[in-house]
């Protein structure tokens, strides 16, 4: 009790302890990476290297409309298959993958709409930063895309910014706790490449795996459902401002997808509201469209290059490091 009678001693010790706690919590939230699981990679390294080298060459030489060859190697197949591809600045075509990037200017914003058609759901993939699951394990979209030999990639849901919420990536269940804010639903990708919208309070992560879900994207909100816009003009992500850089993904038909990334927060591009994104996704024929992590995270990578102008402040064009990507590749 004498301790309390020396107010300054108590105040100094208490202040040091409280400041230490604050610093620890902030470091734990924003700085300290906590790797929980490292993803097992089944890819054959040689195959990856082959594709990467081809891809690098294409970028370096700026080959337009020329035919190239990439090597496909399915995990279980010993034989390699040569795939011819045609690549331009805005398109990629081979026998399995068709990608076409359309840049439009609307609502004072540059918007990159990517039409993707694939022959098999296995080409629509997700990847984690540093191939590791954890909190605050981050890498830029382009680094992850490069590491996974992605042809096309967008930033994902930044699952690592939260300590709760389902995380299923490439068929592996990493986190099964229901997220803190269940206001928004999750986008699930089934093994046949189809999309679904679920609420974490209504189905467990284990049940999702049983139902054939191979990827979850936990951001939101849902923009388009059954072909109709399901956000209002006033809806916004987590008390955010109306216009922002955006990333969205949608499905048009079987194995036919739309990826959208918009610029924002700059003089050239104001950014889009959720409703404006939903309108575009609907125009492009999406039956389901879902909003992914936006703002400074919004990044579109194609063929070795970042296509959009990612920015957090609007002053510096720079990619933000994120937890995960959605990509198209072998």
């Amino acid at each position, binding site marked *: 009790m004498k301790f309390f009678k020396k107010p300054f001693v*108590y105040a100094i010790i208490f202040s040091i302890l*409280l400041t230490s706690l604050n610093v620890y*919590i902030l470091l734990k*939230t924003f700085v300290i990476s906590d790797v929980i699981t490292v993803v097992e990679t089944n890819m054959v390294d040689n195959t990856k290297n082959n594709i990467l080298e081809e891809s690098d060459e294409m970028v370096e030489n700026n080959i337009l409309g020329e035919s190239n060859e990439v090597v496909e190697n399915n995990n279980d197949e010993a034989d390699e298959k040569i795939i011819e591809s045609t690549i331009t600045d805005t398109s990629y075509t081979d026998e399995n993958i068709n990608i076409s990037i359309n840049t439009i200017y609307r609502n004072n914003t540059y918007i990159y709409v990517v039409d993707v058609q694939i022959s098999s759901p296995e080409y629509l993939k997700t990847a984690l930063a540093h191939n590791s699951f954890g909190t605050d394990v981050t890498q830029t979209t382009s680094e992850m895309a490069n590491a996974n030999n992605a042809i096309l990639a967008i930033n994902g849901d930044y699952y690592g910014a939260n300590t709760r919420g389902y995380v299923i990536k490439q068929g592996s269940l990493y986190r099964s706790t229901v997220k803190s804010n269940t206001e928004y639903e999750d986008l699930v990708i089934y093994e046949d490449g189809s999309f679904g919208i679920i609420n974490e309070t209504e189905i467990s992560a284990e049940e999702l795996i049983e139902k054939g879900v191979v990827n979850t994207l936990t951001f939101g909100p849902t923009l388009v459902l059954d072909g109709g816009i399901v956000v209002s003009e006033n809806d916004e992500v*987590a008390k955010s401002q109306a216009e922002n850089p955006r990333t969205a993904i949608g499905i048009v038909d079987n194995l036919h997808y739309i990826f959208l990334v918009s610029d924002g927060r700059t003089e050239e591009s104001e950014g889009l509201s959720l409703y404006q994104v939903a309108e575009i996704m609907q125009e492009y024929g999406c039956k389901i469209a879902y909003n992914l992590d936006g703002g400074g995270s919004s990044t579109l990578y194609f063929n070795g290059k970042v296509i959009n102008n990612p920015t957090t402040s609007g002053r510096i064009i720079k990619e933000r490091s994120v937890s995960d990507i959605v990509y198209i590749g072998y």
Partner: protein
Amino acid sequence: MYTLDTKSIKKTIKVYAIISLISIIFSYVYEQFSYGVYSYFMRLLFIVPLVGGVIIYGVVYLKKIKVTRISYSLWNSGIAILMSGMLIRGIINISGRYTEYDTIYWELGTIFVLLAIIMQASK
């Protein structure tokens, strides 16, 4: 038992009023740099020193309640912990994150405040 005089209580009220004002200014400035994202925890940060400091000590002052040094220290600590919780939660939410790391502030803050009340009641 050592108790605080009215002069100290009056000074405490002034300090809490200044802290409340600084909290309002800090929240406002922080929001200007958060790209329009806001958090109620940040916006309502000033409520903690206003209610826990200005109003409570105002009542103590007006009612001439004798506050023990232990209760005074514990109460102020509780308010500081709760304020830190509001601030940290606000910063985390504005960054677009949801964590449970802030839980410790609510628990610790409540414990300190309750201890202060118990010590005051048992004087």
